[in-house]
Every structure is written in structure tokens, then in C-alpha cells.
């Protein structure tokens, strides 16, 4: 049986589902948590304290849009008091320099800023609102302060033609790190996947460009990229394995092994207000469900790679094969791989929509 890490290494603190953007690729669930159900400041502070004592190293404040919470500065302070490295995963809205200074003073270590494109028009189309200009401002403000800056470009069929421009924008801003993240198909992204999945040609070209950028920028900017696993031969080791390294907490306080886990039927998620973090990690049904190897089906059960990729993503197995215990269908060894191939055949047969054309996106809504 795989040994589990005795405590999570990272906490993903989804502090709200509210967000001023409506990104068509958002991985939040289609059913969002309303404001009235959000955990209080003191509840989050207590949870962060527990996480620190447990040995968690880092917390990512995310959402929705974490800046939508007026108590964010206090939460960052609480994270640092708890001994955690504090990252803010954000769209950069709403933010001014004064608030940024407060965040830095409270001990924020790192700000990861999303970009929906290199140019305002496409970026604002994807975000469903004017957001791009503010992001450029925020990047400059962060550069003038001593915290780490990551640019996160979400890339897909609709903006991949302009990948080189995104690389140029990255060089101009010169962050500590840049992530070129091909969309992963959960939540709203799953709903919009036909318009988002790149063609094989687009993907291959993007990998060439990114490999070159990585080599060129080594030592100056840390370049990372994630490939859409639909096009991979083997699945990703999702979250570093179910319940192995990461705990996510939703705005209402439910502890999840990953952001999509609620799509899996039959799991009960415990609330951090009802039970200590340590106990939830070690003992809750949801966290134990896909730990170890007993739950695995063939071919995973006897596969040489099972300790490496853990059979891929449970949520994706559920979404694509209807069975959360199945081999992730993106795996070339999965009997369900033909389902993925069928999607790719369609996606590659459809012509690329010209830049000027209007896509009927399903835009992310705000919670009630």
C-alpha cells in the first residue's frame, strides 16, 4: 500500500466563490457557495493555526476571487502567524496599491496573477468583463515590492495563436515565475470544452514555443507549463495523489481532497468547524476513499506506473467514464480511452474559429 504523508503539505483555502470575473474556463463547481455560507474570519484563523501545527508548509488563498473578502489582510497575517508561506491566487481585482501594501506588510510571500491573454480584447472576452488593464497595473505594483510574482496565462484553443505575444509580455514584465496552463476540464471548462480544447497542431506548436522560452529564460524566470492531459499518453498524478499532499477547504468549510471532488457521488465531506483538521485528514471517509491501492481497478491495480500517477484523476474518471474508481480515461491503457479519442477527433475536425467570430460561451455566474 502507498504510504500516505502524515499531514498535508499545502492547504488550498477557497475563501469565497464570489468573483468579479466570469472566466469561461473556471474550474469552480457549476453550483457555487453563496456569501451567507462563508466561513468567518475567526474560523479561518483557527483553521490556519491548526494547519501550521499540523506541519502544513504553504497556503494558497484562492476562490472565486480572494480579494472579494474584506478580511483578506487579516487572513494573510493569520497565515504567517501560523508559520505558513502565504500565496494569493488572484485576478488582481479589486485591488489598489494601498491594499497591496497592507497585504505585503501582513506578510504575503507571493502573488499569482491570472492572465486571460496578451491582448485586452481576447482577454476581456474570456473573462467576461474588463479586467486586463488592471492586471497590467497590478503586475507593475507587485514588481516594485519584495514579494514573488507569478503570471498565470490560461491557454486554450481561442488564444493559443497568440502564445508568442504572451511570452513577450512575460519578458516585459519579468516576474519571478510564469505558468502557461492549458485549461483542465472541470467545472465551467468542462461545459465549454469544445470551444477550449486545442487542436493537435496548436498543442504541438505551443510546446515548441514554451520549451524554447523555458530554455531562454532559465535562471531569470521560472517557466512552467501543464499540458492538457487529453493529449497525453499517461494521466497526471492529480494533486500528487488523492489525500496525499493537499487539502482544499471550500468557502463553507468543507474539506476536500481536490476542487472537483464534489462531482463524485457517495462521498461525505466533513466540515472544519465540526472536526479538527488532523482528524479530517487522517480519518474522514472522503480522504480515505482513494488512498492506497485497494480501490484500484485494472489496469491500474497491477500497473508499473501506479505509484507514479496513482491512476490519474478520480474526478475526470467520473466525468468521462461515469466511475470515479476507474482508470483515468486519458490514460492510453484505459479501456475508456476511445471516449477521449472521440472528443479529440471532433475537436480536430472542427475548423478554428476566426479571431473575429463570436463564440457562444457559457460564462461563469456569481453565487447568489
Amino acid at each position, binding site marked *: 500500500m502507498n504510504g500516505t504523508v502524515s499531514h498535508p*503539505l499545502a492547504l488550498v483555502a477557497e475563501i469565497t466563490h464570489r468573483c468579479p470575473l466570469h472566466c469561461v474556463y473556471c474550474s469552480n463547481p457549476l453550483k457555487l457557495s453563496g456569501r451567507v455560507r462563508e466561513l468567518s474570519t475567526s474560523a479561518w484563523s483557527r483553521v490556519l493555526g491548526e494547519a501550521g501545527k499540523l506541519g502544513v*508548509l*504553504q497556503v494558497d488563498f484562492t476562490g472565486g476571487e480572494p480579494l472579494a473578502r474584506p478580511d483578506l489582510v487579516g487572513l494573510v497575517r493569520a497565515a504567517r502567524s501560523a*508559520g505558513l*508561506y502565504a*500565496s494569493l491566487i488572484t485576478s488582481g481585482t479589486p485591488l489598489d496599491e494601498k491594499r497591496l501594501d497592507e497585504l505585503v506588510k501582513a506578510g504575503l*510571500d*507571493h502573488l*499569482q496573477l491570472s492572465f486571460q491573454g496578451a491582448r485586452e480584447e481576447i482577454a476581456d472576452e474570456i473573462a467576461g468583463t474588463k479586467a486586463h488593464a488592471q492586471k497590467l497595473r497590478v503586475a507593475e505594483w507587485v514588481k516594485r*515590492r*519584495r*514579494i*514573488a*510574482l*507569478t503570471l498565470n496565462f490560461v491557454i486554450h484553443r481561442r488564444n493559443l495563436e497568440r502564445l508568442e505575444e504572451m511570452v513577450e509580455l512575460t519578458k516585459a514584465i519579468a516576474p*519571478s*515565475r510564469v505558468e502557461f496552463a492549458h485549461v483542465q476540464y472541470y467545472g465551467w471548462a468542462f461545459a465549454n470544452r469544445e470551444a477550449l480544447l486545442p487542436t493537435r497542431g496548436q498543442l504541438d506548436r505551443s510546446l515548441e514555443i514554451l520549451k524554447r522560452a523555458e530554455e531562454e529564460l*532559465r*535562471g*531569470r*524566470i*521560472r517557466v512552467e507549463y501543464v499540458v492538457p492531459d487529453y493529449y497525453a499518453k499517461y494521466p497526471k498524478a492529480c494533486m500528487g495523489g488523492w489525500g496525499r499532499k493537499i487539502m482544499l477547504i471550500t468557502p463553507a468549510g468543507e474539506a476536500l481532497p481536490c476542487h472537483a471532488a464534489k462531482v463524485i457521488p457517495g462521498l461525505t465531506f466533513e466540515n472544519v468547524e465540526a472536526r479538527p483538521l488532523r482528524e479530517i485528514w487522517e480519518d474522514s471517509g472522503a480522504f480515505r476513499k482513494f488512498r492506497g491501492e485497494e480501490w484500484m481497478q485494472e489496469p491500474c491495480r497491477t500497473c508499473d506506473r501506479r505509484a507514479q500517477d496513482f491512476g490519474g484523476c478520480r474526478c475526470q474518471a467520473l466525468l468521462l467514464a461515469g466511475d470515479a474508481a476507474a482508470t483515468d480515461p486519458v490514460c492510453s491503457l484505459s479501456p475508456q480511452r476511445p471516449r477521449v479519442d472521440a472528443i479529440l477527433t471532433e475537436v480536430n475536425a472542427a475548423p478554428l474559429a476566426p479571431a473575429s467570430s463570436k463564440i457562444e460561451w457559457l460564462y461563469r455566474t456569481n453565487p447568489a
Partner: protein
Amino acid sequence: MTQDPNSRPRLAPGCRLNEKTQQPRVLLMPERALRLNGPSLEIVERCDGKHTVQQIISDLQRIYSRAEPERVEKDILGYLDLLKNERALEFE
């Protein structure tokens, strides 16, 4: 890749050690953590913008006096290179 022996490495913004009271000691960075022990911890603690590369080498050669000095130097330069590629160091 060699570093200028007179340059002074320091941890880049958003890269820092966890607290002295926390075990294990870890170098924390955006979405990454490097576990440190013995020599790697000694090196990172000296990446403070004050120690030159040469001073770090000399210090560690003294601390690890049983090891071959050339080996210590090679390992330190290799480790500094690794940290530089992780974008964890600035050189003054």
C-alpha cells in the same frame, strides 16, 4: 556554470526559510518547497546578501573539514546553480 566568487547571493523575493522552530527546515518558494539538511541548510542560511560565494565555500570547508575541499567547493557551486535555476537566488 561558475559563480563569481566575490558575488553575494541572497534569497530572491518570496523565497525564504521557514521558522527556526519548524522542523524539518525548508526553503519555501512559489508552489515549491525544498527540504534542507546539513550542508544545504548551511548554504542557504549564508545566502543573506552579505556572504560572498568564496566565504560560503570557506565556511563549509571548515565545517566539513573531513571532506575534500575541492569536493565541497564543487558541491556548493552546483547547489547555488540549482537554486539559481529555481529562481531562488539573486546575486549582488
